[in-house]
């Protein structure tokens, strides 16, 4: 394969154009800085260990529009936008643009901010500026996002707030033309506060788009975050997501990711457990059903303080010729003692030509660390299949039951009943 190291021309051209939308005075300089950093970076290639199994050639094949052509809100899946109505505070994006008329903020308490990034840039520019000043990005796709983001979300929860109503971030796509979007998400949770968030991606069949999103989550001391992600992008789309989580003392974060869609999906999560007692649990289920589909989870836990805990549990099913990558990286700093960490990745291959690359990376520089890891790649349990069939259940249904059973311990991590039902209805199951 010829190695491609250049970013596609259409993307480079987009990167050169200045944004003429009104914006705070500090933003152009910030964009310029990230644009330069991006332009200096090469397109990741197979020479790079973290991109060894990734083929980004699809970026070259089609020119994507900088912004999706305007479509009527009626053309999107209004039913989906309403599916959790009454149960959630919802913010809806269509083709990367915030849709206030599809969103429902009726249950949003006054003291909490949940808005599009565009609104936040005008209403709370100082908070957004402070966010960008803190961050040092090295990843090329993250720099690209910072240079070119047009929309996204800003969530700010002050100290001591328990928000019982979940926040639903729904991103839909239906444009009829290939387009690109760079959603930027900022989530800040104050001390002792608690919140549940569902991030959902849905795309109309055969829609071709590239979504390059970046999420930064700051979780203050004793705060709790339950974060669910349901990725059901169009089967032709590319979904690239980089998530950074900063956790303070005794904070508790649970991430649960369900990936089904997109031709190409890469989820990178990096959690910094930067104060004692912080704990983070990341779990995921991925199912590849489209020929040549690619789903990649790169999870990094950085234990920077004593008594921090982490857990990764990712499970996947590959039904056809497709490729899944799991990379679980654990870094324990020298001063981070009394660490508990666990990581596991289990895969079922239903097709001979399916490929899984599962790789644990453990870098431990401290003593008194308990860390377990394991990975399995196997096939459907034929004994179990026979047992179900021997009770009159058709082969196909029995297979579906076993696959749902395989995913069940991930699904059981979804605590909120309405969200659980919502995810179940999307992905099937008991």
């Amino acid at each position: 394969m010829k190695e491609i190291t250049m970013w596609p021309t259409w993307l480079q051209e987009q990167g050169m154009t200045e944004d003429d939308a009104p914006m705070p005075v500090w933003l152009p300089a910030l964009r310029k800085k990230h644009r330069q950093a991006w332009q200096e970076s090469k397109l990741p290639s197979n020479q790079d260990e973290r991109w060894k199994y990734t083929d980004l050639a699809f970026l070259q094949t089609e020119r994507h529009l900088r912004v999706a052509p305007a479509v009527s809100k009626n053309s999107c899946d209004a039913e989906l936008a309403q599916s959790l109505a009454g149960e959630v505070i919802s913010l809806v994006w269509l083709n990367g643009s915030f849709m206030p008329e599809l969103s429902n903020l009726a249950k949003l308490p006054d003291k909490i901010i949940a808005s599009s990034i565009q609104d936040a840039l005008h209403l709370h520019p100082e908070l957004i500026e402070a966010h960008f000043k803190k961050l040092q990005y090295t990843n090329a796709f993250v720099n690209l996002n910072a240079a070119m983001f047009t929309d996204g979300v800003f969530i700010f929860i002050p100290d001591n707030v328990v928000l019982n109503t979940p926040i639903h971030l729904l991103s839909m796509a239906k444009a009829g033309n290939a387009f690109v979007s760079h959603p930027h998400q900022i989530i800040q949770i104050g001390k002792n506060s608690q919140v549940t968030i569902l991030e959902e991606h849905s795309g109309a069949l055969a829609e071709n788009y590239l979504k390059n999103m970046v999420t930064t989550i700051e979780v203050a001391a004793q705060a709790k975050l339950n974060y669910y992600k349901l990725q059901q992008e169009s089967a032709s789309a590319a979904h690239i997501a980089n998530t950074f989580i900063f956790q303070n003392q005794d904070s508790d974060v649970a991430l649960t990711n369900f990936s089904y869609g997109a031709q190409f999906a890469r989820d990178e999560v990096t959690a910094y457990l930067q104060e004692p007692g912080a704990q983070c649990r990341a779990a995921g289920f991925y199912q590849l059903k489209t020929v040549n589909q690619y789903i990649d989870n790169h999870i990094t836990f950085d234990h920077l303080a004593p008594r921090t805990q982490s857990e990764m549990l990712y499970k996947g099913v590959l039904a056809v010729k497709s490729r899944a990558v799991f990379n679980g990286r654990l870094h324990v700093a020298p001063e981070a003692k009394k660490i508990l960490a666990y990581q596991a990745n289990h895969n079922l291959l239903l097709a001979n030509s399916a490929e899984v690359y599962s790789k644990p990376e453990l870098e431990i520089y401290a003593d008194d660390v308990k860390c377990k890891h394991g990975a399995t790649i196997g096939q459907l349990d034929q004994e179990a299949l026979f047992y179900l069939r021997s009770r009159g259940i058709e082969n196909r249904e029995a297979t579906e039951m076993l696959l749902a059973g395989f995913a069940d311990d991930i699904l059981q991590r979804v605590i909120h009943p309405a969200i659980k039902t919502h995810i179940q209805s999307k992905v099937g199951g008991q």
Partner: protein
Amino acid sequence: MLDINNLCVSIQDEKQQAKTILRGLNLQIKPGEVHAIMGPNGSGKSTLANVLAGREDYQLNDGTVQFDGADLLSLAPEERAQRGLFLAFQYPTEIPGVNNMYFLRTALNSLRKYNNMPPLDAADFLQLVKSKMKEVGFDQAFLHRAVNEGFSGGEKKRNEVLQMLMLAPRFIVLDETDSGLDIDALQMVGRAVNSLRNQERSILVVTHYQRLLDYIQPDVVHVMAQGKIIKSGDKSLALELEAKGYSWIENEITP
């Protein structure tokens, strides 16, 4: 109902060599009859049960099996079940993540669908399963657990009997359902099987011991050795075997 003729079956052993297990087995079971098959370890009893249920690990070398006039061996396992065949497994499989109640309901509704009956709704199903659970002495907590996962040996057997009662099959094969059961559980199995016993339904009891046959009175007792039935008789044969072991019959057959 069931007509087995000259059944010859082998299995691939660990060295990938064909090992013959059933060597020309003949057995006829009529509607309403209860047959017992006894025999020493390795005689092929469980193989027979599994071949009837449709396990794919076996190779058919010769013979036929007719079930209600149909060629049983050409049917998929689920088709056999839909036509009324049920095997209570010797070692029921654990299925993590699959809820026991969901499994029972899917199985029952699969059979109802085959028989052109509408699926049982949740309330009716629950009522039915609760009454059957009572019969097998099963706590309702087992409905909400994964199929057989973490069940004790006895609990797994109770779950098999529960499925048998729920599905009410026309032909029942019990593969050493008595092994590992205490007296109370044994009596429960006997009661459950007897409650299903009628003119249309046939039962094949595979067991090592005569004890289960105190509770399920067989019409015919067969002795199996080296892959075929070597002697058949009435229930007194089971008592004789209990007293004298198997070797006398084996000696009788192969002098």
